């Protein structure tokens, strides 16, 4: 034993050196990722497994902080999302096909452009929707607007170069030609300005059989709306005894409160149809009173 102490004291400088070297190398290994990786590579597989198991357990204790971090990160990403920014788009430009007829005699009558709602109200009596397409993208007055699931939303009433103002169905002056899907009878869908979930369908004669839940579609006799798009479903059947017509409460198919993506449908024959209509009226009114 004494010899051991003698040995130690004789070489104590060397042992101090060794000790300090070990401490320095230990610092080096434990604080530097590169060196740790090197040493782990040298260490045998068992050590590596124990380390990774320990790491897996340890991860549970930092999960909460990790969650918080991810949540913060998500929040920052959310602010970078594309829908925070609006952009003028010209991809929806309609180009007249040089051959509008196909071999079966079909021709394009309606052309759809996508648009995004940028402004929308439901709680006024005169509700308008603003979408991010305008006259420079080919939007014109009186085009129909439907929601992304095919429900009628309204009609374009005014355009600026990059935006269009849409008169929503929830506007007291709005009146849409509608037809009952079951019988095909035409009526007029309007809004009474009270409840944004319901429209009123008028001018359906009481001879027609109507049940709750019947679908109401846009009618085929409208200039601006393509036929067959859903306006809503009958929610309440009420008979107006003074006129002998139904007063049907219709639950709107489009959810106006969370409207986001819409399509703007252009009736390519609109100008021709309306011109013909006006010419006809003028012709009849100015025609000589005495036929024959």
């Amino acid at each position, binding site marked *: 034993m004494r010899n051991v102490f003698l040995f130690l004291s004789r070489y104590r400088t060397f042992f101090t050196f060794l000790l300090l070297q070990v401490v320095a*190398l230990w*610092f080096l290994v434990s604080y530097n990722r590169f060196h740790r990786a090197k040493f782990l590579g040298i260490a045998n597989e068992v050590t590596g497994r124990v380390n990774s198991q320990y790491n897996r357990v340890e991860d549970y204790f930092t999960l909460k902080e990790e969650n918080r971090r991810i949540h913060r990160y998500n929040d920052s990403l959310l602010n970078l999302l594309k829908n925070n920014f609006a952009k003028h788009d010209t991809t929806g430009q309609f180009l007249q096909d040089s051959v509008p007829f196909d071999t079966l005699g079909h021709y394009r009558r309606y052309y759809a452009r996508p648009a995004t709602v940028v402004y929308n109200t439901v709680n006024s009596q005169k509700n308008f929707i603003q979408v991010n397409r305008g006259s420079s993208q080919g939007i014109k007055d009186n085009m129909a607007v439907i929601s992304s699931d095919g429900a009628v939303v309204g009609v374009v009433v005014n355009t600026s170069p990059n935006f269009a103002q849409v008169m929503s169905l929830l506007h007291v002056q709005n009146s849409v030609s509608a037809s009952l899907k079951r019988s095909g009878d035409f009526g007029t869908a309007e809004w009474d300005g009270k409840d944004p979930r319901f429209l009123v369908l008028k001018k359906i004669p009481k001879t027609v059989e109507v049940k709750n839940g019947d679908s109401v579609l846009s009618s085929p006799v409208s200039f601006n709306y393509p036929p067959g798009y859903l306006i809503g479903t009958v929610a309440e059947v009420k008979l107006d005894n003074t006129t002998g017509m139904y007063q049907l409460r219709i639950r709107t198919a489009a959810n106006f409160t969370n409207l986001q993506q819409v399509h703007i449908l252009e009736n390519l024959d609109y100008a021709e149809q309306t011109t013909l209509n006006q010419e006809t009226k003028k012709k009849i009114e100015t025609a000589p009173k005495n036929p024959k």
Partner: protein
Amino acid sequence: MNDFLKNTIRFALFIFVQVYVLDKIPHLHKFITPYIYYLFILWLPFSISRQWLLITGFFTGLTLDYFSMTPGLHAAACTLVAYVRPFIINILTPRDSSEFNYKEPSPLAMQWTPYAVYVFILTLLHHGYLVLLEWLSFGSFLDFLIKVVATTGISLLLIFTVELLFPRKLRFRTNTA
């Protein structure tokens, strides 16, 4: 001036220069860092005990390590330098002559040639060990050698510049003093 105070000031100066000047400048040829801080260890008095020399060396390196965020790297190299220093001094200075006429190693105390050898060997050791630990792989032995040699050359240049620019006024110690 008190030895301890003098060496403390020296220590602070060397670390300061190393951390805020030599580590900050763009590395020469992208990979050579000039080192001078270990001159502090080389300048420690002859009379310091080997244990204290080792511990001082260790903490000198560790201080620099905490500035450069590489704990243990310079500490290991400095400990090696501090361990080898007494051996080199013993070899280079004849035992019976001027060994203790001056307080610390200097060109004046050891003559220029032995002092140059002393500085050269310890510099080479320091850089060799440092670069070895830093690279930790002999993957490209030529790169390793080039880096050691180049770093040593730059450091020697710095050290001798310092010796010439700031000659230390060392008193010749006599028995009466």
